[in-house]
C-alpha cells in the first residue's frame, strides 16, 4: 500500500493542478470543492474505477457519480489524465460548443455516468443504478460523492431512506465534508450535525475519516465492501480549497469565480509544481 499511497498522492496533486488550470481557462467555476474531493477521486480512480481505454463501458464496471456536480473539474482532470479528453480540449471547459460542460453531462462525456448539477439528484440516480445492477445480478459497486451543503436537500434523505430499505450494499456514498457551502459555513447556513448519527439512524453503515489521508480512504473503502445488507456512508472530513494556501477555508472560493494568472501561478507553486512546468498550465498544454 505504501507504494500505492505515493502513486495516488501524486495523482491527486496532478488532479488539483489540472483542475485549477481547467478552471483558469474556463474563466469561471468552483475551485474550493474541486480541491477538497481530489484525494477521494484520485483514490477511486486509481483503485476502484476503470475509466480509461476503450473498454470502460463494460456493464459490470464500478461507477462513480459526482452528485456535487459543480466540482466536475476534478473528474475532468482525472479523465484528461486517462486519455478520455483530447489534450486540445483542456482550454474548452464551460465554453460554447465544448464537450466539457460546466456540470457533468452524460450525453457529452458518458463516463460521468449521469448528469448532475442540481443537488440530491446524482445521489438518487446512484441509488437507481445500484438497484438496477442488483436487479440484473450484475456484481459491481456504485460510488457517489456528495457535498455537505447538498445534504440540506430533502431528496437526499428520501434517497437515504430508500437505499437502506433496499439494503443496497453495492452502494457507497462519500460526503466531502469541508464544512462550507456557497455563501458561508454549513453551521451558519443550515447545520448538519450530528451528521454521522443522522446516517446511522437511517440504517447506513457509517465511517468517519480524514478525507485527505489516502491510507484512511483505502481502509474505509475496503471496509465498505465487507458490509452486507446496508449501504455505506463515508463521512470524509476535508478542507475546502485543500492544497492552495489562499483558498483553504475561504468560502468565497466555493465559486463561481474567475482565477487570475497570478492566482493560478501561486496555486501551482503551493501544489509543489516545478517552475519550468508552470508555463504548460498557463498556456493550456498540460495534457500534451
Amino acid at each position: 500500500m505504501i507504494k500505492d499511497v505515493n502513486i495516488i498522492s501524486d495523482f491527486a496533486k496532478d488532479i488539483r493542478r489540472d483542475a485549477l488550470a481547467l478552471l483558469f481557462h474556463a474563466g469561471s467555476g468552483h475551485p474550493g470543492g474541486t480541491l477538497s474531493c481530489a484525494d477521494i477521486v484520485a483514490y477511486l480512480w486509481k483503485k476502484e474505477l476503470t475509466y480509461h481505454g476503450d473498454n470502460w463501458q463494460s456493464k459490470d464496471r464500478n461507477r462513480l457519480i459526482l452528485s456535487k456536480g459543480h466540482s466536475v473539474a476534478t473528474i475532468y482532470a482525472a479523465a484528461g489524465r486517462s486519455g478520455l479528453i483530447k489534450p486540445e480540449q483542456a482550454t474548452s471547459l464551460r465554453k460554447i460548443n465544448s464537450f466539457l460542460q460546466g456540470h457533468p453531462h452524460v450525453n457529452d462525456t458518458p463516463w460521468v455516468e449521469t448528469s448532475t448539477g442540481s443537488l440530491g439528484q446524482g445521489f438518487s440516480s446512484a441509488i437507481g443504478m445500484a438497484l438496477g445492477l442488483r436487479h440484473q445480478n450484475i456484481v459491481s459497486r456504485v460510488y457517489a460523492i456528495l457535498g455537505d451543503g447538498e445534504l440540506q436537500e430533502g431528496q437526499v434523505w428520501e434517497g437515504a431512506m430508500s437505499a437502506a430499505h433496499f439494503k443496497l450494499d453495492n452502494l457507497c456514498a462519500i460526503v466531502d465534508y469541508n464544512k462550507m457551502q456557497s455563501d458561508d459555513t454549513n453551521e451558519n447556513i443550515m447545520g448538519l450535525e450530528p451528521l454521522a448519527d443522522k446516517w446511522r439512524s437511517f440504517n447506513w453503515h457509517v465511517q468517519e475519516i480524514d478525507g485527505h489521508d489516502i491510507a484512511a480512504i483505502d481502509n474505509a473503502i475496503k471496509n465498505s465492501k465487507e458490509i452486507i445488507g446496508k449501504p455505506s456512508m463515508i463521512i470524509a472530513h476535508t478542507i475546502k480549497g485543500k492544497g492552495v494556501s489562499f483558498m483553504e477555508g475561504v468560502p468565497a472560493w466555493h465559486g463561481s469565480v474567475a482565477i487570475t494568472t497570478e492566482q493560478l501561478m501561486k496555486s501551482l507553486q503551493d501544489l509543489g509544481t516545478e517552475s519550468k512546468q508552470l508555463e504548460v498550465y498557463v498556456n493550456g498544454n498540460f495534457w500534451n
Partner: protein
Amino acid sequence: MAISGTKDKSPASSPALIGSSGDSMRETFGVTLTQLAERYPNVVVLDADVAGGTGAHHFRKAYPERFYQFGISEQNMMSAAGGMASTGLIPVITVFAVFCLRAYEQARLSVAYCNRNVKIVASHPGLDVGPDGGSAQTLEDIAVFRAIPGMTVISPADPIEMELATEAILKFDGPVYMRTGRSPIRRVLADDYKFEIGKGRVLRDGLDVSIVACGVEVARALDAAEMLSKEGISARVVNISTIKPLDVELLVCCAKETGAVVTAEDHNIHGGLGSAVAEALIQNEPCPMEFIGVKDVFGESGEPDELAEKYGLTAPFIVEAVKKVIKRKEAVK
C-alpha cells in the same frame, strides 16, 4: 401497544379501493402493462405508495420481483428511475399526475437531460380526478412536460387507445410522459383503431370546423359534433393523443380544409394542447381558434361530470365555441 384498527387483517375487513376496478384508463394501463410484461422483460415498475390507484397493482401482484416500492418520495424515485434506466432497464413510474409535478426538476435533469428510457405514467390528471378536489386535479402537467426538450407527451382518449399507447411507449426508446385517467370512461374509438406516437387521427369528418381534442375531451368532442350536425354544422373531430411531438401536418391540413379550429382538453387553457396547436397553426396556417379548457383556475371537489359542466368542458360548451369560431371565420371572409 396495540394500534386500533390494525388487528384484523382479513380481506373481508379491507375497504374496496374506489375506482380500482372497471373501465378507467388507469386500470386499462395496469392490466395491459401486466399482459406485456413477459414480452418486455426489462420493464420494472416504480411506485410511490399509490399502486392501488394507478393500475400498477395488477403488475405488483403478477410480478412482485419487478415492482419497486419507493414509498412517498417522488423526487428520489424519479432520479432513481434515471439511474435504473442507465443500467438497461425500462423503468415505468406510476404515480398521480400532481406528484409528477413535484418531481418535475428530477424528470428534467435525471431523466430527459440524460435522455433516459423512462416512462412516466400519470394517473389522476385534470378535473376527471373528481372528489379529491383541487389539490390533486392536475391542470398544468401537459404544459410543463411538453416544455422539457426530448420529452414525448401523450394523453390517450379511451381504453382502446390506452392499451395501444401502453405498448407503444414500451417499444419507443426515450423519455415519455403519459396521462391515464381516474374515472370510468366510455369507449369511443373503433376496435381496429391504430395508434402511433406523433400521429393524430380524424375520428369524424367535417368541413365547417375542426374540433381538436385529447384525453377525456375526445368523447365530449364527438358528442358536440353530433349535436352540431343536427343544426346543420359539419364538424370534424381530431384526436391529438400525442401532444408532443405534434402532428403538425394533420393540423395544417385540418385548418386549411375547415378554416376554423376549436381545441378541447381537461387542462388549463394555458400551455396545453390548445397552446401547442395554436403555436403550430399560427406559423403555418393561421385560422380563427377557440379554446375549451379550464380557464386558469384551480378545480374543486365534485363528480367529474359535474365539474366538467361547472368549468365549461362538456359538449354544449364545445358547441358554443364552434358557433363562435365559425362566426369569426365568416367575418374574416
